[in-house]
């Protein structure tokens, strides 16, 4: 009976994410709750602050980045603004990215493909895109995106031709990065909303590119 220990949800072939948190997640959740209770007790923050911050994060999604990309594809002046002052470009579409960190948008071209990672923790343009995907925070992605970016992108189904330079950006300091992908061919007749629909979260990190549905 030695192998009838904690059921990790994998015993019948698939996991029930969110149904039964892993032992590790329970440990960290418990620790976070303890720290939160202490901070509230000591008057450093109020429960209301925590709730407001959760609402702030949940109001941000990759759709914000997709709108910015689609606007840049149809409006050359907006594209210049996006590449020179991402915060102002966000503001122009009603996305509040104000705060102490800087945002920089990296333009993919026929010569260069950009990929974003944070090897030290999980820095991500949260004020625009919300919370990063879990894999972005994994040790696996964080270590392999820097020393084997082409192999990592291949696992995401993205093959970068040898003659295109891969530029990996390790955002470990005070700047957060987002990718401006290239507009895919065959999208001339599409409007801005339809174009935004082609831009997935992974396109904004660089592990994917927008593909036209034809």
């Amino acid at each position, binding site marked *: 009976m030695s192998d009838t220990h904690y059921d990790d949800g994998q015993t019948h072939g698939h996991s029930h994410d969110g149904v039964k948190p892993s032992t590790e997640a329970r440990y960290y959740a418990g620790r976070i709750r303890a720290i939160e209770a202490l901070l509230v007790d000591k008057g450093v923050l109020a429960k209301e602050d925590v709730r407001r911050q959760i609402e702030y994060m949940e109001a941000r999604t990759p759709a914000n980045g997709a709108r910015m990309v689609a606007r840049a594809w149809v409006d050359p002046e907006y594209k210049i603004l996006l590449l020179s002052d991402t915060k102002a470009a966000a503001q122009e579409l009603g996305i509040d990215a104000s705060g102490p960190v800087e945002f920089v948008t990296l333009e993919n071209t026929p010569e260069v493909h950009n990929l974003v990672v944070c090897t030290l923790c999980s820095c991500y343009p949260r004020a625009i895109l919300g919370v990063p995907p879990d894999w972005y925070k994994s040790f696996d992605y964080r270590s392999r995106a820097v020393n084997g970016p082409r192999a990592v992108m291949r696992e995401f189904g993205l093959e970068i031709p040898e003659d295109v330079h891969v*530029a*990996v950006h390790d955002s470990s300091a005070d700047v957060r990065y987002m990718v401006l992908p290239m507009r895919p061919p065959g999208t001339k007749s599409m409007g801005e909303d339809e174009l935004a629909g082609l831009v997935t979260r992974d396109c904004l990190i660089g592990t994917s590119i927008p593909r036209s549905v034809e």
Partner: protein
Amino acid sequence: MAARFGPGDPVLVRAAEKPGHVRTPEYVKGKTGRVEEVLGVFEDPEILAYGGSGPPEEPLYKVSFRQIDLWEGYAGSANDALYVDIYEHWLEPAREEAR
């Protein structure tokens, strides 16, 4: 604080050990790169993280490295590059021919 380096300058990342949550990744320590851009001046997060007040502000640089200079047997193009944002106190001038 005026920036000590400018775009195009070759720089060597100090191979220093510093305890705590430092913002310079281990894999670029001792490596030579090139300043691409001065990103601005920021309060030092390595001080802020431990309850320090942060100032004086310090220049932050976007530094480029050739992937083939960082990893033995790198699988990809010789032109593949890696960019890391590094605070000035981690950088020293490097000789051009070191690259």
